């Protein structure tokens, strides 16, 4: 519709009415503000200019019952306030305008308290650093006697709120680390700034010449900037991921005493309740089918790419998607005991390898802090022995601590990771946390799930050219009336010629679609059902003569072959990963034949079919024991434990909710090239981090002898520390410049299809 909603036209196609959240679901996800007013948060990923804001806000605020609507362009969210019993049709309205909206959980809409604390700390320490620096400059330019003392006293006063408020972040973190017997970069920082302040205060009281207030406060300021940028980047990634459509069901319609219908949140559904699952809804809990038959899309649960036909008596798992017909279900387990919860438990059990990983910064700090503190102690003892003046010895020892205070080291790692995360963000890859990039840089094996990861999980009609055009058009016309993935694939071929509209069309869940035109009965669906005039087996039996066909009066006139379409660039991505020295594998829950086809077409040598979720974990753990570092890329519920077990993990935006939350990286675009890109940037970032650490160490090698020999003044300390920080930051910026700009990516943000 407008210039600025890429994919809006295609989005319209995929908006099918049943897949939109029901009004019960909207009410459940809304926050009551009291007085009958509700507030609902929507995520609208395609909003991105002033015109979009205007269109969305105007459209929503003219709806009945809506009090106000406000777009937040930075987070791509819309907050709507409404009142009354009737939920205004937000989703349909936005869908008509070409904006696909998703419901947002109220708890994820909470504010980010850490960020506001960090920004306040940056503001306070920035104010203090600027003012103290001004006073220091006048001291350096030769203020003497009482004037110098006055300046020192004023500096000491300004530094107090900065240390108390901004420094508190470091003191708490350092204390936490020490209490648990660990060492992190915050320990030498906290020791350095507090000793510097204490010594300067003593100097000020005794009318001394040198005070290091400027050093301790500007150090805080620089480090806080790095920390805040780091936090902003990760928060942005997390917001983008949590804004994706939620795939798990929020609730279901419960039949009470066989009559009364009531919409209950998933958490309140218990075993023994009867649930109604409409076509297009996801199954919220494990259960047995009482009534109705349908096709289930199990791709997110088991990795099977072909929908499974179910009929009364069948046991179905939570997380599967009901495709064609309504079902009545008797719950056999509450949500917390369902398949989904079992996957979460498996994942938590598997999460051993990752928590053992120590971040580069912490490893460096573990060596750095003892060395520096030891050097200061040796300096003190040496000067005591040489001069016997404890004041002189103490001053010089503290000067050593100040000059070695890891300003550059504290920035060396986070700044590179901020720049790298920013590059990945532009390419549509979200990084949840900085250590993920360090871990990704170290991998030597990549394991892929098949359905939904290497492939799109959407079948594609492969023999279209060999089918009679007229028959294909009829099949496509029929297929538009079904939600079955095969039908969608056939329906993609409609619209070429004008067909006579069939008189009556009905869908037989689990079998296919039937239509009557001019006395002819057309059936599109399972062979054994459509071909009733032939000898082939009875209804409901799979196996021998399955396949999808079009029949006229019971005689097959055309048959359709499908193949799960590979993701764009999957072959190139696999090749790039191999060139980068990785061994690539497929771990799939699907059949051996399906895996072999995909593996062959993508050039992947090894694949393991028919794996259970625990089988995937076992395989990854076996690889880990063999000393390999594994990247797991997967999207299904069944992959989630494996995502947790792997050294580092990645998931596409279409992945199951818990998979997306478990993965370290989430890529929003369809192309699989995101995987080699993330690997490439992580490796470059790893190199830059090592360079930065080396720069910081070289700086210390030069400055520490000066400090030990007692020649450091506050002026030298200020220049040396700022210079080393600037060099480190400039080096990190090379990551932005060196890699070619990939901002104009081929595919826009992926339209997350209801699967």
């Amino acid at each position, binding site marked *: 519709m407008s210039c600025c909603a890429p994919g809006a036209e295609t989005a319209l196609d995929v908006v099918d009415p049943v897949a939109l959240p029901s009004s019960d679901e909207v009410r459940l996800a809304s926050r009551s503000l009291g007085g009958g007013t509700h507030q609902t948060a929507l995520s609208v990923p395609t909003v991105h200019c002033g015109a979009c804001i205007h269109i969305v806000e105007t459209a929503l605020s003219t709806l009945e019952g809506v009090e106000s609507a406000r777009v*937040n*362009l930075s987070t791509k969210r819309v907050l709507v306030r409404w009142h009354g019993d009737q939920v205004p049709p937000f989703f349909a309205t936005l869908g008509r305008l070409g904006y696909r909206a998703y419901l947002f959980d109220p708890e994820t809409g909470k*504010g980010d308290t850490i960020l506001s604390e960090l920004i306040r700390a940056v503001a306070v320490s920035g104010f203090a650093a600027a003012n103290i620096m001004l006073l220091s400059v006048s001291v350096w330019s030769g203020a003497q006697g*009482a004037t110098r003392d006055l300046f020192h006293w004023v500096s000491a006063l300004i530094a107090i709120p900065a240390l108390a408020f901004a420094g508190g972040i470091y003191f708490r973190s350092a204390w936490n680390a020490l209490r648990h017997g660990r060492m992190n970069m915050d320990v030498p920082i906290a020791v350095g700034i507090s000793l510097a302040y204490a010594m300067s205060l003593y100097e000020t009281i005794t009318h001394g010449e040198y005070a290091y207030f400027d050093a301790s406060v500007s150090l805080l300021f620089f480090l806080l900037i790095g920390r805040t940028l780091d936090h902003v980047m990760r928060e942005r990634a997390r917001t983008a991921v949590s804004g994706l459509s939620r795939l798990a069901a929020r609730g279901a319609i419960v039949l009470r005493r066989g009559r009364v219908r009531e919409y209950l949140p998933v958490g309140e559904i218990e075993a023994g309740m009867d649930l109604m699952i409409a076509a297009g809804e996801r199954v919220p809990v494990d259960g047995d089918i009482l009534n109705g038959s349908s096709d289930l899309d199990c791709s997110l649960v088991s990795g099977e790419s072909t929908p499974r036909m179910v009929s009364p008596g069948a046991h179905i798992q939570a997380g599967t998607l009901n495709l064609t017909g309504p079902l009545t279900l008797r719950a056999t387990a509450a949500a917390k005991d369902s398949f989904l919860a079992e996957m979460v438990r498996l994942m938590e059990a598997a999460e051993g390898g990752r928590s053992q990983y120590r971040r580069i910064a912490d490893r460096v700090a573990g060596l750095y802090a003892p060395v520096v503190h030891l050097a200061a102690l040796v300096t003190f003892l040496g000067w005591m022995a040489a001069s016997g003046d404890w004041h002189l010895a103490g001053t010089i020892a503290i000067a050593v601590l100040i000059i070695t205070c890891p300003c550059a080291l504290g920035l060396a790692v986070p700044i590179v990771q901020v720049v790298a995360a920013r590059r990945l963000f532009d390419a549509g890859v979200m990084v949840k946390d900085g250590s993920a990039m360090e871990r990704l840089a170290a991998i030597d094996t990549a394991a892929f799930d098949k359905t939904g990861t290497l492939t799109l999980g959407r079948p594609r009609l492969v023999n279209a050219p060999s089918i009679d055009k007229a028959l294909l058009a009829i099949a496509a016309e029929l297929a538009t009336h079904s939600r079955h993935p095969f039908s969608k694939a056939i329906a993609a071929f409609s619209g070429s010629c004008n067909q006579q509209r069939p008189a009556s069309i009905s869908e037989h869940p689990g079998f296919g679609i039937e239509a009557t035109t001019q006395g002819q009965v057309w059936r599109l669906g399972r062979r054994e059902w459509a071909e009733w005039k032939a000898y082939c087996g009875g209804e409901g039996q799979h196996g021998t003569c399955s396949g999808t066909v079009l029949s006229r009066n019971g005689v097959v006139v055309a048959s359709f072959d499908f193949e799960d379409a590979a993701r764009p660039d999957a072959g190139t991505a696999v090749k790039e990963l191999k060139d980068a020295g990785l061994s690539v594998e497929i771990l799939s829950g699907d059949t051996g034949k399906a895996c072999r086809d995909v593996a062959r077409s993508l050039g992947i040598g090894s694949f393991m079919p028919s794996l259970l979720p625990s089988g995937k974990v076992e395989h990854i753990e076996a690889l880990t024991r063999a000393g390999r570092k594994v990247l797991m890329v997967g999207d299904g519920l069944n992959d989630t434990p494996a995502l947790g077990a792997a050294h580092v993990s990645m998931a596409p935006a279409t992945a199951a909710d818990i998979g997306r939350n478990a993965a370290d990286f989430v890529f929003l675009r369809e192309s699989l090239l995101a995987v080699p890109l993330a690997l490439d940037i992580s490796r470059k970032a790893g190199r830059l981090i090592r360079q930065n650490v080396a720069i910081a160490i070289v700086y210390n090698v030069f400055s520490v002898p000066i400090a030990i020999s007692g020649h450091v003044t506050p002026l030298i300390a200020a220049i040396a520390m700022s210079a080393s920080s600037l060099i480190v930051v400039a080096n990190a910026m090379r990551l932005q410049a060196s890699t070619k700009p990939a901002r104009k990516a081929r595919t826009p943000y992926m339209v997350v299809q209801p699967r």
Partner: protein
Amino acid sequence: MTTLVYLIPVALFLGALGLAGFLWALRSGQYEDLEGAAERILIDRDDRPDGLTGRAKMRP
């Protein structure tokens, strides 16, 4: 020296005023949507704050 006695407090007071202004802006939610604010000047309609901007205050 005598000039310093009032110049330094004046300088610090002005700086503190700026700091307080920034903190106020942060609290009142003016940094919630920087991109949106940049685009909103192009929309031709009343731009009274509608209460939703100050989300910071409504948080639980």
